[in-house]
């Protein structure tokens, strides 16, 4: 399960960041921030590579010693970033995919909410709930 989940707007400012151990929050902000370059690189590489993969799921962005960072980009260029613990080796690619899927579904619901202003930070409780379900339960 994830230790940090972030939603980044088209203009690369955070719409939503949630991480598990609150004392390390800044570190996760940093990790997510640095991952944006990799996302940018993956998006712009489309068309140049032979294998024309234009999937929304971008796969593993980069591994660090402690964490693995996964990325996903919607057609509206909103990025989702999920950070998971490296020690959690049982987590398969498919599970990450389905997490992004769930996140995306919930995000579209937020976007279609007429009371939500596109581009504002996400404050939806339903979205919060979905994210909580995907986070590591720390107690």
């Amino acid at each position, binding site marked *: 399960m994830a230790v940090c989940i972030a939603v980044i707007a088209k203009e690369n400012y955070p719409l939503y960041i949630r991480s598990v151990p609150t004392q390390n929050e800044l570190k996760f902000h940093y990790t997510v921030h640095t991952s944006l370059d990799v996302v940018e690189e993956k*998006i712009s590489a489309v068309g140049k590579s032979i294998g024309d993969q234009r999937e929304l799921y971008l796969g593993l962005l980069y591994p660090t010693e402690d964490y693995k960072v996964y990325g996903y980009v919607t*057609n*509206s260029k909103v990025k989702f970033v999920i950070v998971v613990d490296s020690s959690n080796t049982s987590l398969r690619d498919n599970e990450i995919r389905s997490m992004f899927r769930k996140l995306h579904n919930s995000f579209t619901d937020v*976007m279609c*909410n007429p009371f939500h202003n*596109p581009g504002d930070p996400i404050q939806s409780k339903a979205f919060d709930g979905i994210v909580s379900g995907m986070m590591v339960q720390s107690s």
Partner: protein
Amino acid sequence: MADEAPFQLLHSELIHYIYQSEHGADTDNARNITKLEAMGFRVGQGLMERLTKDTARFKDELDVMKFICKDFWTCVFKKQIDNLRTNHQGIYVLQDNKFRLLGSLSAGKQYLEHAPKFLAFSCGLVRGALCSLGVRSIVTAEAAVMPACKFQVMIQKS
């Protein structure tokens, strides 16, 4: 299909509401049009977010326009655009020979002066859809003979 009638009714009621709520309605036509357009913009944005959830990322502008003409139009108006033309320099003309929202008005030229308010929402819809995919544009519509109409999309390069 059963789900198109409510949309049509809601749309005409929307126009009615906008034009009623403004006192001295006739003097402020431009503002009403803008209001309708802005409403369409927000709807288009949300709708596109939902429609593109399961599609692959778009290659280029033309790819986006094709999506609007086929999937988007089918979703909203239950038919595809009849003709898409482009000059490959950022201008696209979308022609619909039997535009659904004009269907309830009598065909021909009799009520042509009322056409703009029935098209404003759709203009906003297209602009919102494009904007959510990161394409800034100006969308205008014209109707020469009633059920047919043309949308002109001008892409803003910046």
